[in-house]
């Protein structure tokens, strides 16, 4: 369990950096089509902002923004977006993740539909990766709170 840091420098700089980290993560997600980056990297950077919040302001304040339950729900939603877009392409008569078929729904040309489909999948991947990374972080740093689970394993 991480307590809130009593160091004013660390807390102030973390408070300053977290919004910029989130903006940079969104930039990495949005530019995944044609520059280095993408859903996985953007999701990890998003999770890093929560980890920074956790180590500087304590787990209680981090839980108010992202609880374990919300992280599990968000990871499921991310996988649902990814699989849903792929299955939608199947339903519309293409292969799995054949984004060009989405043009029928979105009323755009197949090229634009490919771009938008990749963006949708990237957002799904980013949500899932961010939520799973947060779950791993919480699981590691709250291990001593539930010792009976671990004792039963030994």
């Amino acid at each position: 369990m991480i307590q809130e840091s009593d160091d004013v420098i660390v807390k102030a700089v973390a408070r300053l950096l977290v919004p910029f980290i989130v903006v940079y993560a969104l930039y990495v997600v949005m530019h995944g089509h044609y520059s280095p980056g993408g859903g996985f990297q953007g999701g990890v950077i998003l999770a890093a902002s929560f980890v920074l919040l956790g180590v500087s302001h304590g787990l209680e304040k981090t839980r108010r923004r992202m609880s374990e339950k919300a992280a599990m729900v968000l990871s499921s939603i991310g996988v649902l977006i990814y699989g849903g877009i792929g299955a939608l392409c199947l339903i519309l008569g293409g292969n799995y993740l054949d984004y060009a078929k989405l043009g029928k729904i979105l009323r755009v040309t197949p090229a634009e539909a490919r771009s938008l489909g990749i963006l949708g999948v990237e957002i799904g991947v980013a949500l899932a990766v961010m939520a799973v990374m947060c779950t791993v972080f919480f699981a590691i740093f709250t291990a001593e709170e539930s010792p009976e689970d671990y004792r039963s394993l030994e």
Partner: protein
Amino acid sequence: MIVKDVLVILFMLGGFFLFFTATLGLLRLPDFFTRLHATGKGDTLAALWFLVALAVHHGFSLTSAKIVFIAVFLFLAQPTATHAISRAAFRCGVRPWTLERAVLLDEDTVEQGGEK
């Protein structure tokens, strides 16, 4: 063009000098805090000078604006990380190096016949 190249070379030489002194400090200074002091300051400013050299080399563009952003956040984050690490080390019981303690440690190793 010549002026720009000379500026880039000067900035890069400054960065090389600072990286060199920081690495020298890391290798030669006696304990954790002094080594952190050398690398924390030296690497931050060296990286800043290299980034400024890259920005100057690229001219006035979006890329150099991004490089300036990287420099600003590096300058914020790296001293904070150094501060947090040194604070954590001090709380975990790492004792700072002093001349008196160094002399004592030297005598101990000489009496035990061990190497320094």
